[in-house]
């Protein structure tokens, strides 16, 4: 049912006509996030410029029972910002300023639409940076990062968004403004800040955030190690961590990813290697030197056939160039790809990667791997052709199998991209009915009418039954060939 004209007019009164989009041509931009296979044309997009406007809009939508989908930069990979029928999209792109930077307390106060990278750029002259660095950091917004608890290459050492945010201003579905967190390192009462982070826009709209800034490390070294098999590279990852090293980043790329990126950015990667590891070490020069010696020894002991070292900025940038360009590079070798995001215990990396490649074969699809190996966060990229009927469905089916495999080995269906619309079916696999019900009760404590991003992140039990999916207990699962707890 289209939104009534008076409703649209009232939105225009609240925000000014320029900040309300109702023409279908302009609405197209907002029909999906970066998971473009999932689309819904929104009825209306509103782009508030102030906190007061957000509050007024939320009250107005509540009074008219109109659902609200928050949206940052739209780089999400799970359909979290996909519009819902009969609802509006509330875009935060116009609230994109860095409000203040406090170099003494090492914090930045920012609006939700501020780009992730803009914070580190602003902090650089003070010798500081904002640590969480999703590969999408040139574009994604801090509000979206908070909603997804985004990670990045450096979160192995520096933590995820939840570890680096001190305070959030949240507007609830009835227009109330809540301050979660504090000026120090904690706040009285329940840890509502931790709860809000990663809540995928279901509990409130982030309208401001205060993030922690860290001192830039004086010395950084990247090791690039090549391996003759993916299994050896995966085993080396587990070995580095169990040796007691805590690299700033530890990423794995398989041969398909190496070749795709080499053809795209010419980073000088060894194209014949079955896999490479990129291991970044940082800190005082003495620390880097000590860690580097240990890391090299572990890598060699685990079968590295070649180790290259980058110390200066331009060399390091070249090593990372391939990794950073991996997604677009894969986008050049296939017409479409579908990115999965499961996390597993590191000890299962080798077996799971092998099984994923076999399952790809069974589905007649190629899977490319480039991921945050240090935290066991897989990003299998399933290649498919969206123009070929049935191909996306095949990719989706394989993706589902991969996520079930992650759960089966004691992992999770999503490490950093969120559940959104996409992984709703697999939430029924990971959680029991009583746990899903607990999530719903928690949601109602914030949003009794269920108007904020409805249908996302947490499935109803009814939906799980419809999908024919059920929670799987360890031991009664597919993939019996894999050892598990």
């Amino acid at each position, binding site marked *: 049912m289209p939104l009534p004209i008076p409703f649209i007019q009232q939105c225009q009164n609240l925000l000014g006509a320029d900040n309300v989009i109702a023409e279908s041509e302009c609405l197209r931009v907002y029909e999906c996030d970066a998971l473009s296979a999932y689309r819904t044309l929104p009825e209306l997009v509103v782009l508030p410029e102030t906190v007061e406007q957000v509050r007024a809009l939320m009250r107005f939508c509540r009074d008219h029972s109109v659902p609200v989908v928050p949206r940052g930069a739209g780089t999400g990979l799970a359909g979290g910002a996909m519009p819902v029928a009969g609802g509006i999209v509330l875009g935060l792109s116009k609230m994109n300023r860095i409000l203040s930077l406090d170099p*003494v*307390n090492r914090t930045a106060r920012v609006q939700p639409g501020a780009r992730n990278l803009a914070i580190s750029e602003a902090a650089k002259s003070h*010798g500081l940076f904002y640590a969480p660095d999703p590969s999408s950091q040139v574009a994604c917004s801090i509000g979206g990062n908070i909603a*997804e608890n985004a990670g990045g290459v450096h979160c*192995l050492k520096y*933590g995820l968004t*939840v*570890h680096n945010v001190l305070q959030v201003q949240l507007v609830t579905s009835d227009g*109330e403004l809540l*301050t979660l967190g504090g*000026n*120090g*390192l*904690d*706040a*009285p*009462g*329940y*840890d*509502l800040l*931790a*709860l809000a982070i990663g*809540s995928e826009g*279901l509990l409130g709209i982030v309208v401001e955030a205060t993030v922690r800034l860290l*001192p830039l490390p004086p010395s950084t070294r990247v090791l690039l190690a090549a391996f003759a098999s993916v299994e050896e590279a995966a085993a080396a990852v*587990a*070995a580095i*961590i*169990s040796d007691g090293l*805590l690299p700033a980043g530890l990423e794995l790329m398989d041969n398909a990813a190496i070749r795709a990126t080499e053809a795209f950015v010419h980073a000088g990667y060894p194209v014949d290697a079955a896999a490479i590891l990129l291991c970044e070490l940082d*800190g*005082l020069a*003495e*620390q880097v*030197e*000590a860690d580097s010696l240990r890391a090299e020894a572990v890598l060699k002991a685990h079968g590295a056939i070649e180790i290259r070292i980058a110390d200066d900025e331009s060399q390091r940038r070249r090593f990372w160039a391939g990794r950073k360009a991996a997604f677009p590079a894969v986008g050049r070798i296939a017409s479409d790809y579908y990115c999965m995001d499961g*996390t597993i*215990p*590191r*000890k299962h990396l080798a077996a799971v990667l092998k099984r994923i490649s076999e399952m790809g074969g069974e589905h007649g699809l190629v899977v490319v791997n480039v991921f945050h190996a240090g*935290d*066991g*966060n897989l990003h299998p990229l399933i290649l498919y052709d969206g123009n070929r009927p049935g191909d996306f469905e095949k990719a989706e089916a394989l993706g589902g199998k991969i996520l079930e495999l992650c759960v089966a080995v*004691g*992992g*999770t269906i*999503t*490490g950093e*991209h969120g559940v959104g619309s996409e992984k709703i079916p697999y939430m029924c696999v990971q*959680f029991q009915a*009583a*746990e*899903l019900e*607990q*999530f719903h*009760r*928690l949601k109602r*404590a914030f949003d009794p009418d269920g108007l904020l991003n409805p249908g996302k992140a*947490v499935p109803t039990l009814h939906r799980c039954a419809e999908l024919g999916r059920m929670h799987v207990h360890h031991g009664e699962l597919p993939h019996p060939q894999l050892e598990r*707890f």
Partner: protein
Amino acid sequence: MNDGDLTADIQGRIQQAAASATPLRIVGGNSKAFYGEDCSATAVLDMAGHSGFIDYEPSELVITARAGTRLRDIETLLDSHGQMLAFEPPYFGEQATLGGTMACGFSGPRRPFAGAGRDFMLGCKIVNGYGEVLSFGGQVMKNVAGFDVSRLMIGALGTLGVLLEISLRVLPKPESEATLIYAMADEQQAIKRMNRFSGQPWPLSALAYDGQLLSLRLSGAESAVQAAARQLGGDFDELGEDFWLALREQNLAFFEDDDTLWRISMAPSAASPAVFGTRLLDWGGALRWLKTDQPAKVVHEACEAVGGYAEAFRGGEKHDRIRLKPEIAALQSRIRAAFDPHGLFNPGFCRDR
């Protein structure tokens, strides 16, 4: 240690409590009984018997144990593999359990540099007020499936559910540590110094000021710790390790007193609240302990004036321990009802003000 899985018993007790509307006081090692509001429940749910390790693989940097497991046993096991709980949880008694430690959510001197208890929480199993056994999070480093209920349990003092099992991320122990001290009589100067240190990339792992000495701990490779110490100047404190332990356990002379002990959390560089009393600064200035005989009202208002918040940690007026904004208090009670609709768990704790 007497290991035992009492899940079924505990669940039964809670179902019974729900049926008979009998609230429960949840007790682990009873080492932190001084903390929190007065609990009005008389029936005790004893968690200490529900103990034992469930999973620990040093290479995964994860440990999973039952809530009644003693903190000492956990740290001893980790230590034998060169690992540690990096948030340095205070014990306040040898009998401290994992469940009580996480329910209180205290963190020691390493907190500003390594993270708090909640930052190491990976997953948990709980019983809610419906008597249901639920699992949230898991044993992996990154997990954003569903709301972050595990972290919500930290500091909730058991009011949202009884913790049964907890998975924590652990870290390798640093190869080397050293403590440097600087004599300093002026608090403002100490605050300035601590913030300057924190803004530079030193391998810091603790930073405190007791009114006379600024203490700074370095952690990392031996060569890096030595290099940093050379550049930072100051004197080596050979008894540094004892100092940090005593600070964590509140065994320093500062804590021996009958005055109310307030815990104040605030921006690390802000001036201390104007309340008559004595202070000790931890967490590089972000945590300030205050001993005073001033009324709660005076302390709360002075802390609010400097953008911080105060909590009566030991002693003081139980009915005015902490102050919440009304909208936060209302939300908190709705959240509590979402987990524990009959108000079974530790009634009186986390009161909604």
